[in-house]
């Protein structure tokens, strides 16, 4: 065929081109709908075609992959399509021979697409009809065989065969007439085919109308059914249609978009609220189902419409208290009738609003995970949160009213998860907007409007509800959120007490990953809170757990850590990706590291100085990462001026160790990331003060062996600390026997008694210690032996007794 065209189509090219350029627009239109409809069935070819059409838009139009190999030759669009067609047909023939149904299915789909796209250009080619007819025959044959010989085909093949069966049936029905015609006269020449294509434009147009709805544009919505009849949607046949749709749901070749459209239409005609509820209960899940893949997120527009529909559903439910939706209702046989409700009675409808809200929230999170956080898209998307929050609150009120306890706790948890990480003002604003958007009289008993005025009260009320009613997982999560919130608002003691009293840390390892992430976040937040409050030691110990591992990102679910050696299995990676927190919930990692290292510095440097040259004491490490960094920093031959946060802290640590507290303060103060903390100035002052104190301690540890006396006054001026603070610090060191010294009240000096041991003395001490350890080890071994010996002896004795008897 192609040869024929190539030779003879010269005269027609002009015409064709005109047609094809006209067609271009149409096919473009088709393209859009095609893409969306075909997404789920054959993702691969579509993306290929889409990609290509983007690049080769006008030049080659909708050519398929198959003609990549062909020489670059100027051909009309029609020619190309016919070529592609022929190629597909050939492939099908080949595949038939080897019974490869997967290949057949693929090719067949390709074929269908080419035909559907190029109605105007080539009409319905004879060859296509022929293929269909022969395929049908072959299929029937194959099915017959399959029945006879069981388990001959593998599962993918069988699946392909099945779907082919369905598809062919559909197509055959479409082209019934043509196939009939072809069957009557199968030996048509190819010329006639061409004639068919060009000379009969009218029937083609008719065909186009009868072509399934996929390609029909929305306007008019005159649905054409099997027998070319118009289908009308009225409230009378609503239930019937609804049932049809529900039955088709989840089947492989149901067109989801189509269903959604029908359902929306149905919603438009629904006359009673019962009908509306039923349609909505079908429509909302249909929209959620639209996107079958777990990793993709729901289209934003569709999300919004779904959200509106859930709101609508809640409004209907509020105005019609006779209906209750919950999932314990038995499936009724006669659902198609309008229920007769006696006043005062309630009528249960099967469904679950809470799962809609859950899903809506999940989809929102998913979309945030997938949108680049540095674009305006992200911000725009984030604005929808308020509405989502309103829906959640709305749901909560509804569940409360109807005493659906389980749903209430789930939805309260959702609400809490939207609130806990936010500062007061934000919560306030959101609450106010939400409260205004509700009709008056809609109030919740868990969170009455008086409570929502204060964010802490609100969180408290929500958490208390969950403590009382929720199951254990929800309780744990609520507790963690509560602690997080306290920590965020600088209530360290309350947060710490709650953390300790709940004994969460004992068994957090056993809970699911999501909860563990929340726990990590909480720990970090508590640590930061302690830092802001100036409790360096507490802050360090809280942060140690997370920051000391070097896997901060992973532990907080704020990005995947690239691991050099271990390759994660793809499923694992996919799961990890799904757990990532959206950007707006992140805790700033640089700030976290900065706080952690600063704490470590303030604790580690004096400890190192106190250890002095004593090798045993030097081994006690407070913060490993800090030590490592410091070692690395010290090993460098030349260190330039500090550039990043770490450099600053390392420089500061060195200065502190050398007693240059002013330089240390300067370097710490120069870190820019502090600006992210609230009340930066206060924190810097706190740090300065701590640096002075720790500087004094370090100084005393390092240089005490070189002095016999040190003036308190002098120390006070040296570190610009008030005299009584110096006295207090020195006293404390003396009392805890960190410093061998005493105070002389008359002369106001510190008298140092510390004597550096000579090498021999040091060795003697060490030797004595080792000897003691040796004896102890001996004793322990003896004890063990004795215990074992006792057992053996007992056994022996028993044996002896046995022997006697």
């Amino acid at each position: 065929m192609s040869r024929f065209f190539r030779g003879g189509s010269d005269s027609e090219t002009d015409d064709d081109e005109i047609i094809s350029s006209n067609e271009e627009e149409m096919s473009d239109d088709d393209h859009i709908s095609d893409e969306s409809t075909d997404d789920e069935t054959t993702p691969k070819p579509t993306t290929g075609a889409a990609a290509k059409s983007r690049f080769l838009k006008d030049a080659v139009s909708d050519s398929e992959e198959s003609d990549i190999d062909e020489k670059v030759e100027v051909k009309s669009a029609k020619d190309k399509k016919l070529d592609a067609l022929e190629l597909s047909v050939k492939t099908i023939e080949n595949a038939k021979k080897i019974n490869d149904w997967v290949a057949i299915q693929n090719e067949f789909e390709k074929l269908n697409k080419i035909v559907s796209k190029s109605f105007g250009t080539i009409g319905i080619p004879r060859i296509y009809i022929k293929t269909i007819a022969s395929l049908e025959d072959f299929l029937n044959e194959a099915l017959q065989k399959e029945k006879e010989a069981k388990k001959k085909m593998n599962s993918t093949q069988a699946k392909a065969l099945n779907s082919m069966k369905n598809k062919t049936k559909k197509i055959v029905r479409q082209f019934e007439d043509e196939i009939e015609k072809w069957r009557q006269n199968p030996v048509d020449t190819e010329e006639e085919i061409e004639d068919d294509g060009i000379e009969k434009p009218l029937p083609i147009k008719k065909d186009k109308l009868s072509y399934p709805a996929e390609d029909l544009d929305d306007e008019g919505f005159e649905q054409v059914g099997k027998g070319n009849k118009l289908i009308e949607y009225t409230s009378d046949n609503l239930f019937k249609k609804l049932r049809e749709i529900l039955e088709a749901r989840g089947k492989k070749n149901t067109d989801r978009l189509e269903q959604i459209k029908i359902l929306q239409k149905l919603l438009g005609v629904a006359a009673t609220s019962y009908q509306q509820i039923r349609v909505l209960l079908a429509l909302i899940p249909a929209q959620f189902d639209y996107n079958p893949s777990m990793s993709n997120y729901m289209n934003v527009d569709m999300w919004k419409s779904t959200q509106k529909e859930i709101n609508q559903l809640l409004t209907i439910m509020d105005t019609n208290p006779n209906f209750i939706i919950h999932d314990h209702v038995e499936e009724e046989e006669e659902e198609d009738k309008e229920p007769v409700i006696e006043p005062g009675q309630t009528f249960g409808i099967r469904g679950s609003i809470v799962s809609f809200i859950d899903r809506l929230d999940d989809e929102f999170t998913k979309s945030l995970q997938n949108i680049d956080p540095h674009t305006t898209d992200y911000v725009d998307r984030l604005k929808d949160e308020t509405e989502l929050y309103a829906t959640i609150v709305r749901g909560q009120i509804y569940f409360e009213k109807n005493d659906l306890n389980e749903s209430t706790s789930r939805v309260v948890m959702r609400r809490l998860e939207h609130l806990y990480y936010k500062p007061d003002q934000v919560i306030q604003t959101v609450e106010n907007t939400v409260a205004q958007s509700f009709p008056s009289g809609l109030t919740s008993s868990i969170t009455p409007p008086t409570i929502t005025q204060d964010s802490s009260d609100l969180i408290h009320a929500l958490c208390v509800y969950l403590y009382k009613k929720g199951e254990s997982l929800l309780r744990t999560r609520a507790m963690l959120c509560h602690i997080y919130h306290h920590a965020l608002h600088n209530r360290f003691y309350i947060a710490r007490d709650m953390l300790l009293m709940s004994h969460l840390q004992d068994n957090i390892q056993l809970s699911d990953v999501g909860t563990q992430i929340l726990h990590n976040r909480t720990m970090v937040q508590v640590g930061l809170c302690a830092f802001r409050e100036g409790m360096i030691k507490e802050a360090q110990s809280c942060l140690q757990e997370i920051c000391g591992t070097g896997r901060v990102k992973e532990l907080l679910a704020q990005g995947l850590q690239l691991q050099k050696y271990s390759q994660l299995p793809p499923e694992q990676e996919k799961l990890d990706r799904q757990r990532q927190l959206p950007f707006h919930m992140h805790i700033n990692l640089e700030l976290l590291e900065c706080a952690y290292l600063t704490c470590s510095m303030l604790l580690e440097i004096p400890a190192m100085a106190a250890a002095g040259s004593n090798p045993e004491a030097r081994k006690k490490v407070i913060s490993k990462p800090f030590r490592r960094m410091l070692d690395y920093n010290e090993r460098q031959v030349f260190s330039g001026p500090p550039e990043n946060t770490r450099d600053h802290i390392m420089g500061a640590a060195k200065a502190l160790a050398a007693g240059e507290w002013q330089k240390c303060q300067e370097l710490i103060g120069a870190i820019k990331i502090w600006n992210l903390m609230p009340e930066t100035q206060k924190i810097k002052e706190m740090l300065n003060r701590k640096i002075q104190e720790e500087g004094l301690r370090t100084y005393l540890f390092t240089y005490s062996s070189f002095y016999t006396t040190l003036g308190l006054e002098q120390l006070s001026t040296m570190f610009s600390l008030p005299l009584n603070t110096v006295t207090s610090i020195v006293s404390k060191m003396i009392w805890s026997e960190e410093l061998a010294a005493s105070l002389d009240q008359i002369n106001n000096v510190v008298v140092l008694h510390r004597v550096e041991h000579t090498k021999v003395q040091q060795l003697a001490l060490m030797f004595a210690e080792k000897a003691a350890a040796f004896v102890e080890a001996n004793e322990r071994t003896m004890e063990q032996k004795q215990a074992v010996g006792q057992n053996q002896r007992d056994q022996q004795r028993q044996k002896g007794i046995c022997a006697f008897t």
Partner: protein
Amino acid sequence: MAANYDLTPKLIPYLDRHLVFPLLEFLSMHKIYPEIDLLKAKYELLAKTNMVDFISMLYKTIHDTDEVPEEFSTKRDEVLQTLENLQAEAQKVLDIIENPEVIAALRQDKLQNLNFLKEKYGLTDKMVNTLYQFGQFQYNCGNYGGASDMLYHFRVLSTDHELNVSALWGKLASDILDSNWDAALEEVQKLKETIDQKNFTSPLHQLQQRTWFIHWSIFVFFNHPKGRDSIIDVFFTAQYINTIQTACPWILRYLTTAVVTNKRRKSILKDLVKIIQQESYEYRDPITEFIESLYVKFDFEGAQHKLKECEKVLSNDFFLVATLPEFVENARYLISETYCRIHLKIDISGLSQTLNLDQEAGEKWIVNLIRDTRVDAKIDFKENTVIMNQNHTSIYQQVIERTKGLSFRSQVLASTIEKREAHQSASAAEAAES
């Protein structure tokens, strides 16, 4: 200020009505609150008890009349009536128990005793429970001695666990109010065992019981001569210190006082400081602050100020008023001890000031201190200073100290091995024989 640091309002929720009464009495004596408020409080407190005569008296004082409402007299009659009934019934049981034959026949085993009594004398469970009711009623009437007796008898007979525990509480309260401290101390120990051993359905319930126990026991601990040893023993066990930290941090005042006034408990001081530091955000009063400034901040001047405040607070505390002189004495001792340990040379006048004493008394105090505790120090009279002799152990001593026990321990080890070998060979021979 006195009202600021008054703990009575915090204590009351954890005490029995009758136990609160002495506290209120004490408050009215010290005139911390307006008299009329206290009277009203007393009236409210006792209105539900059976001490009708006393209530009507209170009523008269409050309302300043001689008229007493009708209900009082009717209630009085009722009470008397019930009392008589209960007494008659209880007497039956008592007659049985007090029979010398019965006493001789009674054994250790409760169940056995009960069965014996049931069979021989027709004693029923209901009769035993009457004892309990009668005891409770007497307690309500303010007859604590009688109540204590009844509950004692009840406990001997009854096998009902729940009621037994209640009876324990009741007897403790009766003994406390009866100032029978020896018996009360015994009850405290028993009660503690019961609470610790009992399996509570919820930890919250146990916590509550412990909190109650802590509050009730301070009555005993601060009145019994040995009480202050026991309070430290009891409250410093892990469960009770946790209870104090979670439910009632104000008890720290009593604990601190007990530790300070107890000369032998030096080691416990460290733990106490830690706890006070931990709880300082939740509870602080001059007494804990005194410890804090002395052992956390090493601010001797601050400690001295706090000591002055402590005196005021202690004199207004029902439980601690008796410990005041002891507390001050010991607090001074603590200050000077710490001071001496840190300092090499001390100005006597400075120290006396810190101790809140004048020059002469200060000197005497220091001399006593040196003598009593054998602090290695000398007074330089000319310069008016105390010079502490530092005795840091020399390196040789350290080495000797560390190696002293080694040879002995090794010998022991060697002898054990020898013994073992001898034993083994003996048993081997035995085995060969058989």
